[in-house]
């Protein structure tokens, strides 16, 4: 009896230890990447980086203002397209997903989620860029929206499904119409998880490079025209990192740091949104 108890203790300890080691191993790449980026990139991060245009080769300084704005614009376009479709589609799946069409939509969304982003880039190249005759920010935004939409859709569905059935019943039993129950009770209850999903999808597409290569192309100059090629942070990083010029490579490190910074901020924001509200009690 005693021996068995000790054995159990030992297994308990070693399993906990193994789980902890695995967690550490998972964190190591993140820590290494962040430290490396900070070390290499921080030196040229300054106000100019956010407000100035890229300088020609050989001239020091300059920034990536056009790429930062470009990324924001294209992510904005993608969100404007993907958000309504994703939210309404998720609502459809969670409410009527038991039907056969629901299964088909769910399957399609999962497939779309699994398609490599470069394939989506090529697809948009064929369907938007070629017919219009030129690369454009619009095409970039569309490509990003195709990546974003199934993520939002499936996450919204999952979050809505987490809302206890008892709440729908409570609302329906009060004589609240079904559609109002959905909008004012179910959606509102799930909003934190839904918003988190949207922010994570934003963070994901903000860093996508491949789909932009064939669509937005990138631009060394200041451009806000949606029908023209546009710069984006990941594209600029890509171009600069493979260039032979040291200044550009340095800029690429800083660009990567800014990109990671944006992702971290979005993640923190989403964390903050799902924080458990402190239930106030006065004794």
């Amino acid at each position, binding site marked *: 009896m005693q021996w068995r108890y000790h054995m159990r203790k030992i297994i308990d300890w070693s399993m906990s230890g193994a789980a902890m080691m695995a967690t550490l191993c998972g964190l190591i790449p993140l820590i290494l990447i962040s430290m490396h980026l900070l070390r290499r990139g921080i030196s040229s991060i300054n106000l100019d980086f956010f407000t100035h245009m890229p300088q020609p080769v050989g001239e020091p300084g300059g920034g990536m203002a056009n790429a930062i704005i470009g990324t924001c614009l294209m992510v904005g376009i993608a969100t404007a397209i993907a958000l309504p479709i994703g939210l309404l589609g998720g609502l459809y799946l969670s409410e009527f997903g038991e039907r056969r069409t629901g299964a088909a939509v769910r399957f399609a969304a999962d497939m779309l989620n699994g398609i490599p982003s470069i394939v989506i880039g090529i697809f948009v190249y064929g369907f938007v860029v070629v017919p219009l005759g030129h690369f454009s920010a619009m095409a970039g935004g569309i490509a990003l929206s195709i990546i974003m939409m199934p993520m939002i859709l499936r996450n919204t569905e999952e979050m809505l499904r987490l809302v206890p059935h*008892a709440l729908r019943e409570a609302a329906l039993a*009060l*004589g*609240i*119409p079904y559609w109002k129950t959905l909008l004012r009770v179910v959606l509102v*209850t799930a909003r934190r998880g839904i918003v988190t999903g949207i922010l994570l999808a934003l963070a994901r597409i903000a860093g996508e490079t491949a789909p932009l290569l064939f669509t937005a192309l990138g631009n060394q100059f200041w451009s806000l025209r949606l029908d023209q090629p546009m710069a984006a942070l990941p594209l600029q990083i890509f171009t600069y990192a493979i260039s032979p010029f040291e200044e550009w490579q340095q800029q690429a490190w800083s660009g990567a740091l800014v990109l990671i910074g944006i992702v971290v901020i979005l993640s923190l924001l989403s964390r903050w949104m799902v924080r458990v509200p402190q239930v106030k009690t006065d004794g």
Partner: protein
Amino acid sequence: MDDHGQKLSTQHLQAWFGAHLALKEVSIDIPGNRVTAIIGPSGCGKSTLIRCMNRMHETIPSARAAGAVLLDGRSIYQQDPVQLRRQVGMIFQKPNPFPTMSIIDNVTAGLRLNGLRDRRRLEEIAAQCLQKAALWEEVKDKLRYPGAGLSGGQQQRLCIARALAVNPEVLLMDEPCSALDPISTSKIEELIHELRAHYTIVLVTHNMQQAARASDQTAFMYMGRLVECGETRQVFTTPKAQQTEDYITGRFG
């Protein structure tokens, strides 16, 4: 208000979940301004019966019902279910306040979500309903706090206040005390006793003492059938059916 005529009645009511027949030809009369307790072992169809009375039964996919349910002599199946549910309120087994809403917003949810915006009026109604639900004294200083922060018994009384706010005539209570401790239970029972003056109450319960204490009329159900229905005193002292006697004396169930 002391009219004890039939408020609600079912005639040959049958209800299905898919192919499973959960209610078999149930005909019961619920008198107005009285408490009718429905007792019976788990799975006997007592919850299904009251869920047919406000058409919540049909919100479950694959569920359907046949037969008649009359409210004030009118078939509820010819009425708009949304309107009907404002007349026939429901309290559930587990307290289910809306977690995103404050105490006061929970109480007025039914009114606000149906378009009433007058803040003054809403606050008035909330105060009245919380008083009726015997919760006012405990929450009057924290109306803006989350409803989910209350204890289980308080949450259930909050749910009762919420149901009262849409001004129903009938209250269906589906084992409202089964998730509560004895003190909260006795508070809810007292409340049921007071509400009886103004509402018609149908109380589903597992607890025979509760039925005996809180109700005027008791119905015993078994295997989807209504076995017996009569004055509570009569059902508990001189039951007509052998099954009823076996159940209330604890021989099964």
